[in-house]
């Protein structure tokens, strides 16, 4: 962007719309200014979250001095423009467009899923089109089933919204337009992949053409009660509605005009702990067990309030609190903040989509945090962002947006980080201790051991030159690394001395909330109680088959009120969508003398010194304004912590060789909870490349077993030809109550036992 333009960007302009003068800034479209000022311009193809599509022509307006009508969704307003949004000719034209949309449109509103919330229905009424005045010869257009979604070309109005979401937002790039006049239709180029992210494309369809396959024809939209909530699966806490009838969740929707849900959020809603009643005996046992417990283990899939209750129990009984992933994150962020002086990272997810350079480090981002990947994709599509993906494993799903893949050896992250930071801080004003640290680096040695070539970093540096808006995304490979603290400190230099938008993606569920609220311990010992974790006594919402004597049911996250802390440093509310008749953690706390009537009474007492605010649960807002600004809960306040600026020398790197496993769940799986529901449930395999198979002497279909973090895995080995190298993907989502136990460094070298083969 030229200097001239960037000055013009901020320029104040005034425009006249329908006779009234409005102030705005240059760069906004006429439609945006109109919406800002609550002026109605009808649209059919406009979708706020993508670039203007300009396929419908409904948004036409007249601008004085310009011949003919212009598209307000696309045209930027200029200073002094005089705009008319409503007059007879414009409305006639709009009416004609609606007549054309209705050509051969099947009169099947009676059964259509969209009826009642259909844009075509609404606008047909609004523009008073009472008959179908035109027609063409109809052809056979069978309904297509594409896995999670189905497409009915007869209903499609070719607005293109779905295609844009699939390319600009989710980046699966599956949908495309088959052009052919009246025979045009949407096609799915990647049917075999069965992307759950297509749900996000169906969510924006203004008519009933693209719908959720499972939901299709099961309920009218108006019969469903929308319960606003937030997705609890990964740390993104995306906005969502549970749509409920007769206490059954029929589907999950979201405010698709402004936000997006990934497949796990949209389809993984069926995990409630159903048909639970109060088991007095088990409850008494649970209270006893907690009283006597020396350790309380818990999974990070809990609310902030429950985390606070656990913390209070710890303060009362002195039990240790164990949550592996959250602890690792807590340690990492603590070390990180010793350099930055701030409790958390300062970057935001939103800013990732505005970046022109993005560096991803230590995460298989498409699997770990889909929404973050969507934002990277947006940056790539909108700003042709340079995306450097640094990881030991290439990800074929990222191929279309990654401009540079930098491969490094597992467990050499400290070296990688040192190399990267020394490149990023090149020519940056830095204090002496950093300078000494960087000067002491043995670049040659690091480069050789990590396998990251100096020329690779040089290419990266060159591609970043003169680019503004840069993001660094840090993932959970680093948190449980043996040298996590040192790595955190080196990375914190980037936040402190450059203008990078740095985000450290929380590793799981509400790990961020837990890490801020609980005083966590490292190792469990003695009697243990597990909350959604295997232990001597188990409190669980998983409705696990292991219902023995040492078990008490707990509500799942869609049966609770409370708040979650998201990777955008926001505290967002979740609401009850399913009935629950049993005991909750608060009842146990009450029995121990930690009294509160409801769990949400703790919302206002979340620790202020960690940035939480003293706001009642019922006072938390949860809505978007007209322009898409989110008012969901509140942002954590920035908290200063004491600075301890000291860097340790990079330790000797000893890389892994041979066959290595990497903990990584499939795209729509995050924990045992996503796997419970019917829609997402899938069998877990150890996925390895053909090379891995050779190295480990395994064949496709072999039954194998191995142990990681004392958890015994038994599964089948499958060859995935899209993978390369000797690192296999080991999912953990299917391990039920044992899933949270697997919390060590994500790469591990294990002894694989072959328990059966596929030969017969």
């Amino acid at each position, binding site marked *: 962007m030229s200097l001239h333009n960037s000055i013009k960007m901020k320029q104040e302009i005034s425009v006249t719309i329908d006779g009234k003068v409005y102030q705005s800034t240059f760069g906004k479209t006429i439609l945006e200014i109109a919406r800002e000022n609550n002026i109605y311009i009808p649209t059919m193809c406009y979708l706020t979250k993508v670039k203007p599509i300009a396929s419908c022509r409904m948004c036409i307006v007249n601008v004085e001095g310009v011949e003919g009508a212009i598209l307000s969704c696309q045209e930027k307003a200029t200073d002094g423009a005089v705009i008319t949004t409503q007059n007879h000719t414009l409305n006639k034209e709009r009416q004609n467009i609606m007549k054309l949309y209705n050509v051969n449109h099947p009169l099947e509103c009676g*059964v259509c899923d969209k009826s009642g919330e259909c844009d075509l229905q609404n606008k047909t009424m609004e523009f008073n089109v009472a008959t179908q005045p035109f*027609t*063409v*010869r109809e052809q056979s257009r069978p309904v297509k089933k594409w896995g999670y979604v189905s497409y009915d070309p007869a209903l499609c109005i070719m607005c293109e919204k779905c295609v844009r979401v699939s390319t600009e937002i989710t980046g699966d790039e599956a949908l495309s337009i088959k052009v052919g006049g009246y025979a045009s239709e949407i096609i799915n180029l990647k049917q075999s992949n069965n992307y759950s992210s297509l749900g996000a494309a169906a969510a924006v369809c203004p008519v009933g053409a693209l719908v959720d396959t499972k939901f299709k*024809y*099961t*309920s*009218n939209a108006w019969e469903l009660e929308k319960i606003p909530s937030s997705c609890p699966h990964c740390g993104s806490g995306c906005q969502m509605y549970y749509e409920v009838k007769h206490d059954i969740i029929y589907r999950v929707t979201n405010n698709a005009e402004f936000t997006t849900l990934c497949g796990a959020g949209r389809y993984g809603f069926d995990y409630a702990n159903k048909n639970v009643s109060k088991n007095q005996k088990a409850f008494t046992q649970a209270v006893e067990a907690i009283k006597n417990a020396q350790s309380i283990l818990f999974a990070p899939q809990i609310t902030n309030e429950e985390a606070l209750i656990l913390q209070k129990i710890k303060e009362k009984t002195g039990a240790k609190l164990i949550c592996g992933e959250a602890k690792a994150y807590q340690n990492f962020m603590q070390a990180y903040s010793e350099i930055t002086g701030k409790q958390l990272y300062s970057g935001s997810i939103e800013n990732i989509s505005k970046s022109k350079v993005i560096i991803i480090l230590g995460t298989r981002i498409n699997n770990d945090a889909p929404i973050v990947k969507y934002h990277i994709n947006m940056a790539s599509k909108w700003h042709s962002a340079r995306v450097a993906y640094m990881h030991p494993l290439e990800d074929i799903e990222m191929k279309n947006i990654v401009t540079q893949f930098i491969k490094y050896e597992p467990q050499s992250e400290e070296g990688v980080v040192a190399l990267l930071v020394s490149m990023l801080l090149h020519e940056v004003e830095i204090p002496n201790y950093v300078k000494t640290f960087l000067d002491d680096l043995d670049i040659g040695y690091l480069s050789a051991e990590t396998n990251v070539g100096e020329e690779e970093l040089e290419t990266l540096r060159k591609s970043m030159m003169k680019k503004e808006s840069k993001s660094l995304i840090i993932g959970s490979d680093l948190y449980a690394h043996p040298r996590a603290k040192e790595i955190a400190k080196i990375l914190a230099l980037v936040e402190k001395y450059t203008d990078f938008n740095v985000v450290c993606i929380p590793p799981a569920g509400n790990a961020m909330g837990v890490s801020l609220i609980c005083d966590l311990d490292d190792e469990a010992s003695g009697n243990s109680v597990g909350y959604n974790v295997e232990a001597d006594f188990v409190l669980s919402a998983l409705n696990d088959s292991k219902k023995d004597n040492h078990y008490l049911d707990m509500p799942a996250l869609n049966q609770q009120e409370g708040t979650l802390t998201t990777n955008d440093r926001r505290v967002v509310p979740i609401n009850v969508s399913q009935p629950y008749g049993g005991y909750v953690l608060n009842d146990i706390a009450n029995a121990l003398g930690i009294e509160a009537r409801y769990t949400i009474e703790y919302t206002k007492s979340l620790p202020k010194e960690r940035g939480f605010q003293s706001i009642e649960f019922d006072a938390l807002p949860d809505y978007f304004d007209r322009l898409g600004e989110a008012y969901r809960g509140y942002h954590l306040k920035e908290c200063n912590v004491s600075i301890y600026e000291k860097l340790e020398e990079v330790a000797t790197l000893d890389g892994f060789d041979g066959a290595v496993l990497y903990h990584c769940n499939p795209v729509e799986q995050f924990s045992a909870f996503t796997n419970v529901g019917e829609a997402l449930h899938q069998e877990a395999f150890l996925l390895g490349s053909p090379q891995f198979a050779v190295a480990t002497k395994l064949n496709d279909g072999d039954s194998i077993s191995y142990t990681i973090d004392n958890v015994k895995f038994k599964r089948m080995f499958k060859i995935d030809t899209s993978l390369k190298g000797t690192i296999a993907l080991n999912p953990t989502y299917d391990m039920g109550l044992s899933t949270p136990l697997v919390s060590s460094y994500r790469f591990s070298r294990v002894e694989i036992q072959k328990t059966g083969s596929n030969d017969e």
Partner: protein
Amino acid sequence: MSLEQFKNRNVGTQRYTMLDLGKDPQTPWCKVRQVIRRTFKGDLLVGLWVTMREMFNALFRGNMATLKYPYEKLPISPRYRAIHDMLRLLESGHYRCIGCGLCEKICISNCITMDTRYDENQRKEVSEYTINFGRCIFCGYCAEVCPELAIVHGARYENASEQRASFSLFEDMLTPIDKLNLQKEYPGFGAVSPDADENIKQTPLAY
């Protein structure tokens, strides 16, 4: 108008006709004579004769005027609104209901409950449909709103039951398939008007 005028009802031309009722008996003897005459006139037998004739007609000619309810019932108006019927398509025999849910939505006493699903023929299928007759007020809105003339009011008006709320299932209300030829259109609210043909606007078709 003065009060005087207002009170004078004999305004305008009066056209009263006096009836010739004869004269009231004047003397005691005349009164006795009238009693004797009226007592022995044959009028009593006229009444008895009517009774005898109707008894004879009822017993021997099959002209019974009363009904043996509940074994016999009077025909009722075809527009009467009693327990619902679910109609079938005459040609295919398939039930007419498309599961649009409008009856469920419009019902002011919230007594219709239904579930639908995607069937193997890619159609919306009604999987569950009940009307709670403990709540239904027989307003006829469901029959009126139904776009398929699928739900209508029938003639079953006996609603007494042992339970306050008794439910009717879809199958109970559906025309039995073997009685399809006896299925009648309902002429009440929501039915097509007799001049419907003249009001139909045709959609242009290219073929």
